[in-house]
């Protein structure tokens, strides 16, 4: 029987009909639909044991305990640590984005050596040998910059520099240094802290305590608890921000003049009937403030009415346990005199070394013998040093090592800082990320990221009581990185400089022992906390009193109010990829950043919404767009720090401009510290 056309069609028809009674069509359709769920670029869940592991967040100026949630050992999210005294369950915007930075495209994945205008990959052995050779060659012509005031890696790095015979150990600018110098002006010695939890009236003079200043997570918890207790929080600053939005009241005050307001309030308090004449230094202080800071003068400088100044003074006196927090809006830039002005207000109110007041914390114990004392490091001013090197007034170091800091991006007098780094003989960056300083470096020895290394933190600025935290690694290094502490000890040994320790863990254990803390318990997440405060005899100013320097209003320039919003990043970290969605429509327009001025100022300058403008100071220039916001004082421009990166990754590079370029610093004669909180800028159409 042959298969003719009709039979063939019949066979095929039978086959098709038969297939309808088989799973072929239905199963194929079902499986194809499931196949579309499993394309390789679709993220897959990782299953496994879910744990929360204690860790440290040091991405901002603060250092506090967090808990990292892991699935099958892999970190997936960070949350506050309710057991840590500086978190109390809270977390900052950088901490919330911290886990994702493990896999940031800007991570430096292995050691790199400069090769012309780019880098070539080298091994860790080659990198350590190279650095050891440079250390030997440089001798005392060596400097280090650290952005970590709290950790022992800074001690090891400073120890290496000190052992080589150099005293050039520097911190990045912050408020710890001027606060310590301010305390010294009042006869004290130690770190400055604030017992916010136990105060019943908190006057925040410029301190963005709920947004970016001090122990942000802890401050937020204290504020939250205060709502039920009837504690009043008053914010004083040139513009509305997150802190002013929730505080009980906001008092507009010209940018950078909060310290003048402090002395104005002090003059009112000193003029009350209470006899304080027996207090050391009171008579001369009272005479100074009443002579130099009468109400009308303070009102004119600050823009705060005389009645409001008097009212603040009365509220402080009546409060019982008031606390005055003095800071620059951006958490840096005030001189020691300005911070001492706020401190003297606390002294007048008898709020120093008392519950709910300013606390004086002992310095961290020194375990690396050759390291510079913290106090000495705070007195070394980095901005002044780099400016001098750039100007040729000091020899550029043969070897410059940078840890936990990004001085090529986040310093005032930025052009000079970059020039000085450029002049250094050999620059080594220990950054985990390709930041601006790493991009300029000759050698990058990438530090393992926060959750990949053992790290510690002693009493970050603002802590209300001495505390020490140790965090063990949460995960093995994702890339070919090594903890900087161990690398530095290894390099020191190769350079025949004995720092007294073989491993960084031994350094941390020694510090824990010196404090009387239990290393093993701390690794499990229990922070060490002390209630012992050094007793000190303070006086109302031990140094000659003089009027605070305030930039003159000239009618042509505006007061610059730089602000720090942690979601955008910090002086160490660029915009975390996780946070890009948190940048709002009123903060950026495309790749341009907004600066804020009010309608009256805009009218004076002939500007309207979204105009492209150029901001210029003696330090440099920035580009931006104008946003009209009535929460800004007259003749003031608010500009965000943290934008305008030139390195890092696509999430931050080329977005906005770097406001640090506008920060022109001058040097405080008495302390040698840099001041840059009262910068004035011109704003003109671009």
């Amino acid at each position, binding site marked *: 029987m042959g298969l003719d056309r009709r039979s063939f069609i019949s066979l095929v028809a039978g086959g098709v*009909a038969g297939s309808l009674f088989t799973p*072929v069509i239905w199963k194929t359709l079902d*499986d194809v639909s499931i196949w579309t769920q*499993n394309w390789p670029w679709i993220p897959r869940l990782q299953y496994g044991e879910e744990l929360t592991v204690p860790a440290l967040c040091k991405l901002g100026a603060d250092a506090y305990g967090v808990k990292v949630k892991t699935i099958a050992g892999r970190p997936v999210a960070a949350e506050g640590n309710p057991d840590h005294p500086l978190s109390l369950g809270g977390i900052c915007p950088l901490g919330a984005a911290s886990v994702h930075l493990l896999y940031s495209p800007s991570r430096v994945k292995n050691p790199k050596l400069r090769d012309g205008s780019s880098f070539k990959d080298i091994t860790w052995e080659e990198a350590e040998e190279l650095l050891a050779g440079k250390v030997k060659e440089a001798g005392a012509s060596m400097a280090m910059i650290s952005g970590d005031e709290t950790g022992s890696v800074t001690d090891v790095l400073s120890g290496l520099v000190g052992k080589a015979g150099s005293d050039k150990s520097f911190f990045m600018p912050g408020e710890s240094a001027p606060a310590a110098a301010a305390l010294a002006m009042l006869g004290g010695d130690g770190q400055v802290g604030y017992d916010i939890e136990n105060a019943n009236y908190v006057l925040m003079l410029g301190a963005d305590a709920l947004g970016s200043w001090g122990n942000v997570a802890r401050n937020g918890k204290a504020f939250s608890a205060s709502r039920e207790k009837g504690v009043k929080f008053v914010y004083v600053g040139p513009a509305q921000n997150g802190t002013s939005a929730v505080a009980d009241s906001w008092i507009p005050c010209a940018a950078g003049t909060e310290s003048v307001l402090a002395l104005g309030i002090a003059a009112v308090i000193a003029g009350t009937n209470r006899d304080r004449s027996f207090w050391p230094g009171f008579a001369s202080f009272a005479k100074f403030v009443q002579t130099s800071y009468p109400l009308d003068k303070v009102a004119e400088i600050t823009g705060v009415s005389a009645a409001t100044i008097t009212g603040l003074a009365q509220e402080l006196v009546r409060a019982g346990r008031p606390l005055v927090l003095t800071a620059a809006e951006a958490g840096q830039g005030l001189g020691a005199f300005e911070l001492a002005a706020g401190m003297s207000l606390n002294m007048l109110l008898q709020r120093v070394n008392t519950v709910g007041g300013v606390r004086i914390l002992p310095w961290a114990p020194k375990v690396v013998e050759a390291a510079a004392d913290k106090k000495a490091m705070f007195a070394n001013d980095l901005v002044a040093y780099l400016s001098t090197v750039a100007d040729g007034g000091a020899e550029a170091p043969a070897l410059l090592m940078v840890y936990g800091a990004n001085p090529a991006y986040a310093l005032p007098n930025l052009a000079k800082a970059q020039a000085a780094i450029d002049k250094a003989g050999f620059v080594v960056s220990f950054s985990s990320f390709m930041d601006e300083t790493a991009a300029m470096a000759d050698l990058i020895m990438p530090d393992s990221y926060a959750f990949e290394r053992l790290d510690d933190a002693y009493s970050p600025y603002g802590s209300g009581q001495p505390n020490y935290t140790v965090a063990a690694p949460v995960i093995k290094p994702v890339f070919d990185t090594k903890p900087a502490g161990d690398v530095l000890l290894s390099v020191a040994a190769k350079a025949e400089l004995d720092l007294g320790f073989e491993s960084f863990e031994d350094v941390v254990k020694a510090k824990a022992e010196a404090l009387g803390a239990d290393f093993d318990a701390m690794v499990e997440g229990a922070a060490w906390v002390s209630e012992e405060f050094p007793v000190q005899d303070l006086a109302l100013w031990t140094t000659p009193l003089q009027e605070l320097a305030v930039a003159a209003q000239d009618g042509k320039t505006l007061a610059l109010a730089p602000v720090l919003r942690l979601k955008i990043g910090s002086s160490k970290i660029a915009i975390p990829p996780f946070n890009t969605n948190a940048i709002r429509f009123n903060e950026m327009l495309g790749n341009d950043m907004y600066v804020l001025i009010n309608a009256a100022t805009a009218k004076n300058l002939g500007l309207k919404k979204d105009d492209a403008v150029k901001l210029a100071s003696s330090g440099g220039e920035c580009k931006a767009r104008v946003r009209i916001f009535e929460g800004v004082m007259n003749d003031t421009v608010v500009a965000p720090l943290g934008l305008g990166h030139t390195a890092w990754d696509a999430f931050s590079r080329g977005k906005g401009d770097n406001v640090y370029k506008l920060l022109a610093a001058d040097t405080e004669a008495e302390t040698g510290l840099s001041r840059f909180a009262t910068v004035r800028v011109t704003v003109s159409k671009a």
Partner: protein
Amino acid sequence: MAKCKSCVVLPFLVGLVASIVLGWWGFPKVLYSQKTQPIRFDHIVHVEDQAMACEDCHAFRDDGSYAGMPTNANCVGCHEDVQGEDPDEARYVTEYVQQEKEVEWLGYQKQPDNVYFSHIAHKELDCTSCHPDVANMSTPPVYYENRLSGYSKDTMKMWQCEECHAQSGASNACFVCHK
């Protein structure tokens, strides 16, 4: 005409039968690839000879989540070094334990990511209601992987979940399984 009729009917029947046979017998052979577990894990040796309980490896964690397949952490207590003469055990020790690498066990009933299945909510059921009775096997069964979907042939379909939920009076609301 009779000849013409058989020319139509017979090929139709042949095509019908051939298609049904191929569809039910041949299609699965093409659709599924056969895989064996990376290591031949002998449950009988562990359960009978070593008197281990199922929960020693397949345990609920403190938070109620199910550990599922054991990891090296479960095994290194005994298998840090080679214990016996089984070549698979030797391979496990040298290729996984010593290399600090986890075995990629094949899960016969692994559900898609969009399904939330809680073992502890089903702990009253016998394991073999859903899983093969591997406890009584020296060699784990062959794993049939669907070449199209990538899932195991034994991965339970949604209608099976719904049927059992309906029969047992459990909710069939979407959010019960799809969070």
